[in-house]
C-alpha cells in the first residue's frame, strides 16, 4: 500500500500543519490537536464542538467556521480524541452561552466526551451533549454498542450551527440538533476495505468480486456480503432500508457521500440512481449534497443519508456556511 505520508506516527500532526498553512481563518493547535475558528469565542453565541477519530476528513476539522462548528478535536486515526482536547476546545469557544458537544455513537467517543463534559462543567462551562446514531445497518442495539453515528453528523453540525449563528440559546440549539438526528438515517456500502497508515494495509478483507452492505465508517461489518452489484441495484437496496426505517412524510435532505476512494463520476451516477429510487417510493428530495464528506480513509464505496425536513430545518440548512469542507451563501 503506497501512501502520501512521511511516517505513520505523524500523519495526524502533518495534516494539521497543512490545515494551519492553508486556512489562516482557523487556529490550528497542532500539539494539543484542536482546530478553532479564529474569531472564537463569538460573542453571545452558543459554541459547537465536535470531534472523533481522524480519517473521516473533511469531518470534523473541515466543518469549522461561520455557520457550522466552532471547534473540532481530531483523534488519532480511527481513535477518539481525549477529554483534554475537548475541554480545551470548549474553553476556547465558550462565550458564556454554553457549548454543545456533538458526539458520534462510538464507545470511545461517548466515554471521552462524557468525561470532558464533566471536566468542562467543573470549569464553569455549561455543556449540553447530542449523540448522533443514524446508521440503520445496525439493527440489534440490544447486543451491540447501538447504531453508529455517520452521515447525519454533517446535517446535525450544519443545522445546529445555523441555529447557533442566529443566536439561539443552548437549550434550543441542543433540541434542534437532537431533532435532526432523530429525523436522519444512513446506510453505507463498501466496495473495498480501508487502509490505516499504522497498519500499512487493508484493515479487513473484501474479495474483488464482493461488496459489504451496511459497512461502518471504520470498515466495521455490515448486514451482509454479496457479489458485486450495479449502481442501480445498490441504490435500490440502500434507499429501501433507509426509507423503511425513516418512513419520511416530508421532503428530505439527501447526502450522497463518498467513502474516500470513489470518484465524483461514480458518485453522481449513484446519485442519479438514488434520486430514481426515492422517486419510485414517493420521497421528495428538497436538497442534495454529493461528495466526500464523511470518509473512511481510502475506502471505495458510498453512503446515503436522508434527513426529513420542515420549512424551519430547510431554512437553517440553506443558511450561509463558510468552512474548508462546506461553504455556500457566504
Amino acid at each position, binding site marked *: 500500500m503506497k501512501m502520501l505520508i512521511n511516517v505513520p506516527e505523524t500523519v495526524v500532526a502533518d495534516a494539521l500543519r497543512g490545515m494551519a498553512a492553508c486556512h489562516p481563518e482557523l487556529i490550528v493547535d497542532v500539539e494539543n490537536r484542536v482546530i478553532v475558528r479564529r474569531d472564537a469565542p463569538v460573542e453571545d453565541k452558543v459554541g459547537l464542538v465536535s470531534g472523533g477519530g481522524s480519517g473521516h476528513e473533511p469531518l470534523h476539522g473541515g466543518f469549522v467556521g461561520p455557520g457550522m462548528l466552532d471547534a473540532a478535536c481530531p483523534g*488519532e486515526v480511527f481513535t477518539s480524541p481525549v*477529554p483534554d482536547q475537548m475541554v480545551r476546545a470548549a474553553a476556547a469557544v465558550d462565550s458564556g452561552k454554553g457549548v454543545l458537544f456533538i458526539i458520534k455513537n462510538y464507545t*470511545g467517543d461517548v*466515554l471521552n466526551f462524557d468525561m470532558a463534559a464533566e471536566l468542562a462543567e467543573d470549569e464553569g462551562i455549561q455543556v449540553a451533549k447530542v449523540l448522533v446514531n443514524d446508521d440503520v445497518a445496525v439493527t*440489534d442495539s440490544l447486543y451491540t*454498542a447501538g447504531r453508529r453515528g455517520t452521515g447525519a453528523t454533517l446535517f446535525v453540525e450544519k443545522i445546529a450551527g445555523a441555529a447557533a449563528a442566529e443566536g439561539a440559546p443552548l437549550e434550543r440549539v441542543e433540541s434542534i440538533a437532537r431533532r435532526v438526528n432523530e429525523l436522519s438515517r444512513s446506510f453505507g456500502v463498501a466496495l473495498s476495505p480501508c487502509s490505516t497508515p*499504522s*497498519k500499512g494495509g487493508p*484493515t479487513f478483507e473484501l474479495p474483488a468480486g464482493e461488496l459489504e452492505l451496511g459497512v461502518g465508517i471504520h470498515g*466495521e461489518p455490515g448486514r451482509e456480503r454479496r457479489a458485486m452489484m450495479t449502481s442501480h441495484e445498490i441504490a435500490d437496496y440502500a434507499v429501501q432500508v433507509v426509507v423503511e426505517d425513516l418512513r419520511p412524510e416530508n421532503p428530505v435532505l439527501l447526502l450522497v457521500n463518498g467513502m474516500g476512494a470513489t470518484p465524483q463520476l461514480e458518485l453522481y451516477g449513484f446519485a442519479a440512481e438514488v434520486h430514481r429510487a426515492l422517486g419510485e417510493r414517493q420521497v421528495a428530495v428538497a436538497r442534495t449534497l454529493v461528495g466526500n464528506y464523511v470518509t473512511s480513509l481510502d475506502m471505495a464505496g458510498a453512503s446515503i443519508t436522508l434527513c426529513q425536513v420542515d420549512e424551519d430545518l430547510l431554512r437553517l440548512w440553506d443558511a450561509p456556511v463558510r468552512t474548508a469542507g462546506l461553504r455556500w451563501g457566504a
Partner: protein
Amino acid sequence: MSSSEPAVDDTLDTPFFLRWLTAAATSVSREAARLTDLDSAIGDADHGTNMQRGFAAVTEALEKEPPGSPGATLILAGRQLISKVGGASGPLYGTLLRRAGKALGDAEQITPQQLADALRAGVDAVAQLGGAAPGDKTMLDALLPAVEALGGATGSFAAAGEAAEKGALATVPMLARKGRASYLGERSVGHQDPGATSSALLIAALAEAAR
C-alpha cells in the same frame, strides 16, 4: 504462592507501585504488536499502539513528578491514560487506576488485601462506565476473576495473574456485546478480546513488581 510473594501481612509501598506500573509499561510495549493484531481481527487495529502510547506517558510522568503514596501513584497514572490513550481504552483503564488510587487514600503503606479491595472498586467503576457485564467479551472478563483471586483467602499476585490470563483466554468463544467488536456479531466468536488481553498483562505485572 512463590516464596518471594508478599505474605498477607506484608505491606506495599510507593516503590512497589512504581515497579508495578513500570513492569506493565514494559510488558505492554513488548506485546503491542500482538494486541494490535488481536484488535485487527475484531476491532480497529490500534489497541497496541494506543496502550503503548499511554503507558509510555505514565512512565514519563511518574519519573518527572514521583508521587508520595501508592494512591497518588495510581491516580497520576490513571490521569495520564485518560489524557493520552483515547478510544474506549483510555477512559476505561484511566478509570480503573484512578478509582483504585482514590480508594487507597493517602496511606503510605497498604496491605495486599487493601490493594485487592481498591482494585475491586476500580473494576466496579469500569463496569459502570462501560456498561458491560461478565461474558460480554471485554476487559472485565480478565479483571473480575483477577480481583476475586487476589481478594480470596489464599490470594496472591500469582493467582491473580493466572486468573486474568485464564479469563482473557475464555473470551475466545464469546460473542462481543460491547464496543466496536459488537458489530461483528457471530463473527467475533473465535477471537481473543484485546482489552482482556492487555488487562491480563497489567495484572501479571503485579507479580513482577513483587519480585
